[in-house]
């Protein structure tokens, strides 16, 4: 028996109030945790997906849409641009390399991307088995796509038109899986890569059938071209050149993802304030419970003093009671926050967008944990002080 077990017993004497209060605090803390780990993972993921891509060139339109469709593979492409654009970009000396992307088909919701092996190099992807394509209609499957579709080395599959599951099937040109990639933790995991020429070939045929989107009269086209700079010089000149001198547009992933976060900001702030109000209300709840305890348990406290316990003991017990209640709320909140993030991740993975996990600890959580415990300590100090100052003789005389 010590101050801690005495405080624990006291807290357990009111399981319902303690649990309700822990739940209210848990909801607030959980919301903050979800915001912290959700945002940080999203940020990590978005910067990982955009690594090595300094600029994206595509047809004129919304730069955000261009980035979302060709870097994060979330949105639909704006349209196409001629492959000639690539040569034009390479005229700029500060360009290290360019990677073409040809989108348009999927296999059970996993996008088929016509590109070059350099695209996989962007994400330092390694082959788990097989190799890259040597000819047309050969495909390399990302780790999550392989898992989701069950495709393995040597399997054949037919692309479906469009970017979502369930489009018309391109029956005449089945792809053969020649390689499977290791997991990279990037968007690449959810993609099926093939040569640009294969995508063209599928759609040349598709065009004959009346639902292709590659216009042969204008020569071969791609959806977007990813650009990697050789020197910062390019950053100053290339976007201006593209936007000014060509009918295309240049969009910077870093800039657009920053804009995206800025757009989400009011929602995030609103949720954060709501969470702060919940946590504040639950701290008030802790204080109320402590005062209630103090009133109802005056006699117990006086008896402990009569038995030789010093004022310090009562101070410690009351302080610990407050801390235990706050700790219960904090732990509930951490559990709820991580659980919510894991569930959100499970649902969004089903929708094949950005993957979240509950098994993540953001640095901000240390601050949150410390802050909540400190707040608990602060709100418990006054009741604890009052407990230590209790007038033993008067309380004992007065009876219950």
């Amino acid at each position, binding site marked *: 028996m010590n101050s801690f077990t005495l405080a624990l017993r006291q807290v357990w004497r009111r399981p319902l109030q303690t649990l309700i209060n822990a739940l209210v605090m848990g909801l607030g803390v959980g919301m903050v945790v979800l915001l912290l780990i959700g945002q940080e993972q999203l940020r990590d993921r978005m910067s990982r997906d955009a690594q090595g891509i300094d600029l994206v060139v595509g047809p004129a339109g919304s730069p955000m849409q261009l980035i979302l469709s060709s870097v994060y593979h979330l949105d639909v492409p704006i349209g196409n641009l001629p492959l000639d654009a690539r040569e034009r970009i390479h005229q700029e000396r500060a360009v290290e390399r360019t990677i073409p992307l040809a989108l348009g088909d999927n296999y059970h919701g996993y996008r088929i991307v016509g590109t070059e092996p350099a695209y996989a190099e962007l994400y330092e992807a390694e082959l788990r088995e097989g190799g890259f394509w040597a000819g047309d209609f050969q495909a390399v499957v990302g780790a999550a796509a392989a898992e989701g579709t069950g495709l393995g080395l040597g399997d054949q599959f037919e692309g479906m038109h469009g970017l979502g599951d369930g489009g018309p099937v391109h029956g005449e040109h089945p792809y053969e899986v020649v390689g499977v990639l290791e997991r990279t933790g990037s968007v690449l995991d959810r993609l099926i890569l093939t040569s640009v020429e294969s995508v063209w070939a599928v759609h040349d045929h598709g065009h004959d059938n009346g639902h292709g989107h590659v216009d042969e009269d204008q020569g071969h086209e791609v959806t977007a071209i990813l650009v990697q700079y050789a020197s910062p010089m390019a950053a100053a000149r290339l976007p201006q050149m593209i936007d000014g001198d060509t009918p295309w547009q240049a969009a910077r992933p870093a800039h657009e993802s920053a804009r995206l976060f800025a757009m989400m900001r009011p929602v995030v702030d609103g949720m954060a304030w709501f969470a702060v109000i919940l946590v504040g209300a639950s701290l008030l709840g802790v204080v109320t419970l402590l005062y209630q305890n103090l009133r109802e348990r005056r006699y117990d406290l006086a008896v402990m003093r009569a*038995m*030789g316990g*010093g004022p310090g003991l009562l101070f410690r017990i009351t302080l610990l009671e407050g801390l235990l209640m706050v700790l219960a709320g904090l732990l509930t909140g951490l559990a709820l926050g991580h659980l919510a993030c894991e569930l959100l991740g499970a649902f969004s993975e089903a929708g094949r967008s950005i993957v979240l996990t509950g098994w993540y600890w953001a640095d901000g959580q240390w601050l949150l944990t410390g802050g909540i415990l400190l707040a608990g300590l602060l709100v418990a100090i006054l009741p604890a002080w009052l407990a230590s100052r209790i007038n033993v003789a008067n309380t004992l005389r007065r009876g219950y």
Partner: protein
Amino acid sequence: MRAAMDAVSLNDLRCWQGNRPLFAIPHWALPQGEYGLMSGPSGCGKTSLLHCIAGLDSQFSGQLSVNGTALSELGQRGRDRLRGEHIGLIFQDFHLLEGLTVEDNLRLGSWLGGRGQSRAHAMDWLDRLGLSDQARHYPNQLSQGQKQRVAIGRALIHAPKLILADEPTSALDDRNAESVLALLFSEAAGQGASLLVASHDNRIRDQFSHRPALDAYLAEPANRSGQT
């Protein structure tokens, strides 16, 4: 020299409740190992005197010594320690901690009395109190008599030199009152402790050899206010 021999010694003790003088005692002492009874109607100051002796109430003037230690020379910490180690307090309403089991109530007494909190020691006491089967029970599961037995155990488990009991039998029926008093006497004798009981319970009057002349001082103000 004589003060060191007495369990309790009072000299020119005056006590107040708020601004109201409660009692004034020129001299009185309870010799070591004796059992004393303060009788008198409720409200006459018996409880206040017990609180003063226990160091819980410091609204007094004059000399008050417990086992030779003058309380006025001790700070709050010193009085807490003296009470914890040398005094066992028993209340009319038992005042067991409702959130603790019977066993833990005893262990708490032992712990706060500075005697550790050995489980075996607590079980040993429960055995002596005839409450072994109730070790895991909570106070609200006990009868009045059982509660008072636990309270006595809790007050005596740390072997105090002085036992102060405030109306220990008033809330009990005849049979329980008798057995609780017998327990109190036998445990006090076993530990060589002095016993001072404050009670207006006439059933127990005859059992005390030492009835201090204190009653005269105590009864006075209460009678005055009691007649209105």
